[in-house]
C-alpha cells in the first residue's frame, strides 16, 4: 500500500517531465520556420480568412466556397508570390481564433478584416494597408445628412453596443443622441424603421448593408482611421517583404483597382472621401 502511494506521486512527476521534454522538442515549431521557403517547396499556402463578413469573406452556400475582397487579394498575392500552380488553402477564422492560429502556425498569414493596431503589432507583423477601413455613417438615400458633421443637436444616430464606434461618434459629433442596439442586424432594422437618422460602424460593414439594400448609402467617407493589414508572424521578414512588394505591384498595374471595383464598385458612396 505504501508503494502505491509513492507511485501516485511519481506518475504526475513523470507526466510533467514528459510534457516539458515534448515542449522542448517543439522549440522549432511550424510557426518559426521560414514560411516563404516552406510554402515554395510545398506549393501550398494557407490563409486565415473570414467566412461571415459580407463583401470581405463570406461563405457562398451554393458553391461552398468563401468569396470576397480579402479572398481575391489573397489569391492574387499567392499567384504572384508562388506561381499559378500553387494550392491555396483558405481556413475560416473568427476574431477570437485568428491570432492563436497564426501564432501556432495553423495558418501562414491572416487576411481577415484585421485593423492594424499598436497592441497587435506587439504580437504579429502587419503588411502595408490593403484596405482603408474606418468608421463611417449610413443614411437613407436623399437624407439631409451628408457627413458626420451634419449629426447636430436633434439628430439621432444608431450604434452597436460593446464596440468603440459609439465612443468615436460621440467624439466626432458631440451634440447628437446615440441609440445603442445589440447587433448589426437590429441596428439596420432600426434605421430602416426610422428610429434613427444614421447608423454608424466600420465602413466595410456599412458597404455590406448598402449592397443588401441600395436605398441606404454610405456618406461622408471615414472619420476614424482603422486600416486593414495582412498579418504574418514575427520573424517572417522574407514573406512579409514578398507580400508588400506584390501588393504594391498590384496597386500599380491596376489589379488591385479591378478587385476593388468588383466588390465595391457598385456601392454608392464608396469613392467619397477616398
Amino acid at each position, binding site marked *: 500500500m505504501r508503494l502505491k502511494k509513492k507511485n501516485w506521486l511519481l*506518475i504526475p512527476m513523470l507526466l510533467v517531465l514528459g510534457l516539458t521534454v515534448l515542449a522542448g522538442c*517543439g522549440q*522549432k*515549431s511550424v510557426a518559426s520556420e521560414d514560411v516563404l521557403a516552406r510554402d515554395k517547396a510545398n506549393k501550398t499556402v494557407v490563409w486565415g480568412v473570414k*467566412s461571415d463578413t459580407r463583401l470581405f469573406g463570406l461563405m457562398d452556400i451554393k458553391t461552398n466556397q468563401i468569396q470576397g475582397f480579402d479572398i481575391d487579394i489573397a489569391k492574387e498575392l499567392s499567384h504572384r508570390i508562388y506561381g499559378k500552380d500553387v494550392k491555396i488553402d483558405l481556413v475560416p477564422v473568427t476574431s477570437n481564433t485568428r491570432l492563436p492560429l497564426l501564432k501556432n502556425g495553423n495558418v501562414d498569414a491572416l487576411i481577415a478584416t484585421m485593423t492594424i493596431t499598436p497592441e497587435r503589432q506587439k504580437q504579429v507583423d502587419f503588411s502595408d494597408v490593403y484596405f482603408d477601413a474606418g468608421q463611417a455613417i449610413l443614411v437613407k438615400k436623399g437624407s439631409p445628412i451628408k457627413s458626420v458633421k451634419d449629426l447636430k443637436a436633434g439628430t439621432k444616430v444608431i450604434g452597436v453596443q460593446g464596440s468603440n464606434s459609439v465612443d468615436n461618434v460621440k467624439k466626432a459629433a458631440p451634440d447628437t443622441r446615440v441609440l445603442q442596439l445589440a447587433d448589426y442586424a437590429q441596428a439596420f432594422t432600426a434605421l430602416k424603421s426610422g428610429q434613427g437618422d444614421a447608423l454608424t460602424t466600420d465602413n466595410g460593414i456599412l458597404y455590406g448593408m448598402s449592397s443588401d439594400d441600395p436605398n441606404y448609402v454610405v456618406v461622408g467617407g471615414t472619420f476614424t482611421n482603422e486600416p486593414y493589414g495582412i498579418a504574418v508572424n514575427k520573424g517572417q521578414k522574407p514573406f512579409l517583404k514578398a507580400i508588400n512588394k506584390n501588393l504594391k505591384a498590384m496597386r500599380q498595374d491596376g489589379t488591385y483597382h479591378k478587385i476593388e471595383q468588383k466588390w465595391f464598385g457598385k456601392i454608392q458612396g464608396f469613392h467619397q472621401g477616398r
Partner: protein
Amino acid sequence: MNTFAQAYQWVNLRYLLEGLWITVEVSVISIIFSFLIGAVFGLLRYMKIKYLSLIVGFIVDIIRNLPLLLIIFFTYFGLPNILGVRFNTLWATIIAMTVFESAMLAEIIRSGILAVDRGQMEAARSNGLTYWQAMYHVILPQAIKKMIPPIVSQFISLVKDTSLATIIVLPELMYHAQVIYGQNTNFMIPMFLALAVLYFIVCYALSLLSRFLDRKLSEA
C-alpha cells in the same frame, strides 16, 4: 410561413446536409477509435497490472475530468506548438473526441466488468478455465450486456458534442446552420428546427441500434 419556405430551399438544405455529413464522419471515426482504445484501457485498468494499471487509471481520470472543449483547443491550438504538426479542424476534432471518449468508455467498460459477480470468475477458474478463458467465455459476455446502454448513450452525447467544434470553425452541421442564418437572420428559427430534427434522427438511430443489440444479446 414564407420565411420557412425560403429557409428550406434546396441550396440551404444541401448545405445543411453537407454539414451533417461532416458531423457523421467525425462521429463514426471517433466512435470506432475510441471504442477500441477504451476497451483496451478499461481492461488494463481492471486487471490491476502493477504500474501499468495505475498509469492507465491516472490518465483516464485526468482526461475524464477535463472539459471536452479544452481538449479540442489543445489538439487544434496546442499540438502544432508542441509537436510541430498542423492538424486541420477535422482531424483536430477527431483526435480530441477520440482521446476524451476513450477515457469515458474505458470507465464504462471497467465498471461493466466489475458489475459481474466475483463468484463467476472464481467458479470458472475452479472449473479449470484459465484467466483469459474465463474472461472471454464467462465474464465478458455478461459484462457486455450490462455495458451496452451506457456505451450507446455515451456515443449519443459524442454525436451532439461534435457541435463544440464550431468554435474552431469545423464545417459541421451546427456551423453550417450558423452560416445560413448569419446571412439572413430570419432563417434562425427555421434552422434551429432543422438542427433539432437532424440531430434527433442521428441520435435516435443510435438508440434504436442499442435496443436492437440488447434484444440480440438476450436471445443468445
